[in-house]
């Protein structure tokens, strides 16, 4: 959903509304700063005029110096205050935006999160916001002062000597033109360079990331050859883009020196020719004008930089707003019930669901689960096992039909209370970046130390936790880098052993745990599951033999259901599946 540049700009302005006072202040200080910086060369010029051999008026010079010092003081203060205020506005605005984005992420439907690469959303919330901040900051500091400086300089030069002002005005745009010319030429080169660089990075990512496989297949030479080919292209294109873009500086400097020479020429000639009054001229005035000529092209270059930066910032802001504008989950209805502790009967009635309209998945699914039953779901990959969990937890809503828990349609219950009735352990273990303790306490923050340790013992994780460097206070690296897959899974199990919710969802909950440990925690699982409605997805058929009901799923529908004994007797798909364990 692309947001138009205009509407993005409008929203940025709206975002800035709370900072009206600050904005007014920053404009005021910018005015003061520019006025100060521009008046100082004039005053210095006047001082130079006062220095005449034999006739130097030291009193007058000192008075000027005091004035100059005062102006410098005020200018410095204004400059500092201006940056302080600009920082304040910028960092507050981006803080607001990030918070809004994060709040929104919490409300985004999982359908959106699943369908978008995490890196992309994170990139928008972090890098794009940063880019936006840079643009905003530059805009405030350099755009205002730049424009004011150009206008101020023009006015002063016109007042001092319109002929020289004219000379400057005519030549200066050249520098803008040159800068623009180079920028437009280099834009494509840079684009090309970043494309090739992206290609190289992807290649590095792929090959270095899987170096072990590369070596196992002795594929190093082929890789190096391919790498060199990309490297060669990268070298060529970066040489061009680096060289051409680095021409901006010398080119503008050159134009500046033309301006400088022209001002010197015009000024000196006027001095020699003793032009009459409106153009009357002194050495001091020439000094000021030369100082201006030196400075004059700088704001032009800055402004052209700021404009690209601002365009970039607007594009970035647009990308952030796209996330923020993404429709959130349908909120709980105001009349939604809060379900305290469910008994655990679950009913699926004529449920239809698919992730995309053109690919049917679950069709007319019906299931009646009595409180306390243990339901096992088996079937090949892609048969819809995980989808059932998504529906149970209301991560996704059915396209039609309804699901109820304890006789309440789950859309009439608050999500919060529905979800807190389930304990979920997924195959894809996820741990928070924090201590082991924080992770275990996720489901029950107020648990006591004893309760926590007891849960850890029950799930056989206490021992390995104690072997970690800081025990329960060991910090787990992002996504559990310092733990094995099995250990991570054990921690996830500990989590629900502690929170003891009325219903359980175990999706391949022990797939990474070795069978001996698995067998040991089976007892704890059995205890946990007794009296709790549980949904179990498992590859290992041994773990599900004791289920009250086994659903055999294929292509989104239940093709067989019954107990282990019944299904074996039936001699259908389950029978084949089960027996394949014992085949060669």
């Amino acid at each position, binding site marked *: 959903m692309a947001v138009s540049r205009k509407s993005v700009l409008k929203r940025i302005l709206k975002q800035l509304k709370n900072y009206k006072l600050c904005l007014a202040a920053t404009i005021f200080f910018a005015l003061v700063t520019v006025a100060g910086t521009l008046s100082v060369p004039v005053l210095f010029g006047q001082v130079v005029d006062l220095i005449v051999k034999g006739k130097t008026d030291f009193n007058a010079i000192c008075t000027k110096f005091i004035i100059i010092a005062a102006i410098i003081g005020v200018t410095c203060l204004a400059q500092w205050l201006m940056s302080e205020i600009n920082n304040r506005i910028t960092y507050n605005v981006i803080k607001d935006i990030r918070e809004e984005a994060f709040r929104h992420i919490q409300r985004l439907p999982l359908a959106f999160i699943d369908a978008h690469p995490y890196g992309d959303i994170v990139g928008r919330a972090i890098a794009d916001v940063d880019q936006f901040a840079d643009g905003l900051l530059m805009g405030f500091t350099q755009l205002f002062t730049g424009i004011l400086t150009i206008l101020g300089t023009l006015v002063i030069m016109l007042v001092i000597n319109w002929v020289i002002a004219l000379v400057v005005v005519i030549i200066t745009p050249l520098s803008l033109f040159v800068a623009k010319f180079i920028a437009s030429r280099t834009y494509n080169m840079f684009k090309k360079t970043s494309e090739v660089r992206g290609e190289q990075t992807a290649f590095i990512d792929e090959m270095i990331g899987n170096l*072990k496989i590369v070596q196992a297949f002795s594929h190093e030479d082929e890789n190096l050859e391919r790498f060199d080919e990309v490297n060669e292209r990268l070298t060529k294109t970066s040489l061009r883009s680096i060289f051409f873009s680095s021409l901006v500086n010398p080119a503008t400097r050159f134009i500046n020196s033309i301006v400088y020479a022209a001002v010197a*020429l015009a000024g000196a000639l006027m001095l020699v020719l003793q032009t009459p009054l409106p153009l009357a001229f002194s050495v001091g005035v020439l000094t000021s004008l030369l100082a201006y000529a030196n400075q004059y092209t700088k704001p032009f270059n800055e402004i052209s930089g700021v404009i690209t930066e601002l365009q970039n910032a607007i594009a970035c802001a647009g990308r952030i707003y796209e996330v923020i504008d993404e429709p959130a989950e349908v909120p709980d209805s105001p009349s939604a019930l809060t379900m305290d502790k469910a008994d655990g009967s679950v009913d699926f009635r004529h449920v239809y669901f698919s992730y995309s309209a053109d690919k049917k998945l679950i069709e007319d699914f019906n299931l009646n689960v009595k409180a306390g039953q243990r339901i096992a779901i088996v079937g090949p990959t892609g048969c819809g096992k995980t989808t059932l969990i998504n529906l149970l937890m209301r991560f996704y809503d059915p396209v039609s039909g309804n699901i109820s828990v304890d006789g309440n349609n789950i859309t009439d219950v608050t999500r919060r209370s529905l979800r807190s009735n389930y304990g979920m352990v997924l195959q894809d273990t996820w741990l928070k970046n924090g201590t082991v303790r924080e992770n275990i306490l996720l489901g029950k923050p107020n648990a006591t130390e004893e309760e926590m340790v007891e849960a850890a013992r029950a799930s056989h994780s206490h021992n390995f936790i104690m072997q970690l460097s800081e025990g329960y206070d060991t910090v787990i690296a992002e996504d559990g880098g310092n733990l094995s897959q099995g250990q991570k899974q054990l921690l996830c199990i500990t989590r629900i052993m502690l929170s003891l919710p009325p219903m359980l969802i175990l999706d391949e909950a022990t797939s990474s745990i070795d069978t001996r440990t698995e067998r040991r925690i089976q007892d704890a699982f059995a205890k946990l599951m007794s009296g709790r409605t549980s949904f179990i997805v498992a590859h290992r058929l041994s773990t599900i033999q004791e289920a009250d009901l086994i659903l055999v799923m294929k292509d989104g529908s239940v093709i067989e259901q019954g107990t282990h004994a019944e299904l074996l007797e039936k001699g259908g798909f389950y029978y084949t599946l089960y027996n394949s364990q014992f085949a060669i």
Partner: protein
Amino acid sequence: MGKLLKYLKNYKAQSVLAPLFKLLEACFELFVPIIVAAIIDTGVKAGAGVSYIVYACLILLALGVIGLVAAVAAQYFAARAAVGFSKELRHDLFSKLQSLSYSQIDSLGTPRMITRMTSDVNQIQSGVNLVLRLFMRSPFIVFGAMIMAFIIDVYAGGIFAVSIAVLCVVVFTIMLVSIPLYKKSQSKLDAVTTATRENLTGARVLRAFCKEDDEIEEFNARNTELKRSQLFVGRISALMNPLTYAIINAAIIVLLYVGAIRVEDGILTQGRIIALYNYMSQILVELIKLANLIITVTKSFASAGRIAEILEMQPSLSKGEPGEREEGAYIRFENVCANYGNAPVNALDNISFTAERGQTIGIIGGTGAGKSTLVNLIPHFYDASSGQILIDGVNVNAIGDEELRERCGVVPQRAVLFGGTIRENMRWGKNDATDEEIRSAISAAQAEDVLASKDGGLDGLVEQGGKNFSGGQRQRLTIARALVKKPEILILDDSASALDYATDAKLRAALKSLGYDPTVFIVSQRASSIRHADKIIVLDGGKMAGVGTHEELLSSCGLYREIYYSQYAKDGA
């Protein structure tokens, strides 16, 4: 950094010419104020006339042109040298990384290697470029201006020296103070990034535990902290402009005052005062450039150090002398121990067994039992810390890694495919494999349906990492990839875990009828995958807990029994 200088070797001329031309440009820039002084003193005051002034201005213009030419040349040579430097560095680094041993790869870690290849090299490239361009120029202009001032007038020169010193102190203090603060605020930003990423990757779990509000609160706290630290560092670095501005202008006041006295005394002229005034303005710009340059250079040095560390890594795999061929079984492990680094406990402890040509060896045990370690020793991915592994009577470290790995087909635990077509992926093991060879490998790997499900058959596109295939599909294709090269030794490292039992069984049957008889090592946690192996090795915490056939182990090995019955209910089978 010194170690990396050799990459400039092919660009000697450019590396010398770039700073030289820069110096030339700077020189001409320094002449400008002098000429302006001459215009005023000689042209205007002394009445040398219009022609003198025009002449002087033409010289100004000429200086500008020469400056431009010199600058363009400098930029070109600098860019050439920097880009060429990084090209050769990248090549060597990539090649070096590819030659690292598994244990070096483990200790470096992928993210680090990738950062070295990408952002570190880029950092050095811009460092080299900048150094060649500015490292001579900025100091030259700053000190050149000072020297010019001394030439014009000693007193004025003194004022220059003092103000340069004060400016240096201020500029560098602010930088030194703010750099660590920037780093700190960067780490605060990292915390915000982590929180954002975490809430996406963990959305299901966090929502299941109803943690949304807590997470928002935590995020806001981190975000506020970030803002605070950004404001703080912003406040300090905002001092730079006003302070330097004040110092320069104060220096000009002093300069003009002293200058006025000297003019009064007849030592200086008005034109020269103006020249001094101009020199002073030049200093500030260059000094700030210099300070920025120093930051970039420091960063580049850090990057260079990190890269040099990798380039200096010695090959860590042992190289044995091919000695007398020892007669005996085809593959022999003799009292093999393995240790990753210096861990107190060996990953493998005193393992001995033999395998005959064409046999299937099953390896089973819990997580961390050393199963993968054992099979990784066969293609000499790691060194045994003691004992030896012999293939055909030759120690694996004496065979030559390339040759050895040609003979082994490895299917790693993590099923990864590479971007390209299915055919390209299948040819990894054998560059010139025919479609027929590929198809028969695919069919043995039970992946015919995978091939059929993709448009284009063998030309079907594989996304990077094989993301467009499911876990099970990827596993079967990686098995096919290893089969294409018809290896003499085939190693399946828990590589059928995502397959359902029926497919797993078919796969094992197919491996038995390949038409040639590779020696197969199957690592698995599933008893069903290995129970029909000719020999089963049971590992427990790196030690051999049992070896034999299924029946033998059932009666002799308690651990095997436990594993087996935990997967097959005792009365079930």
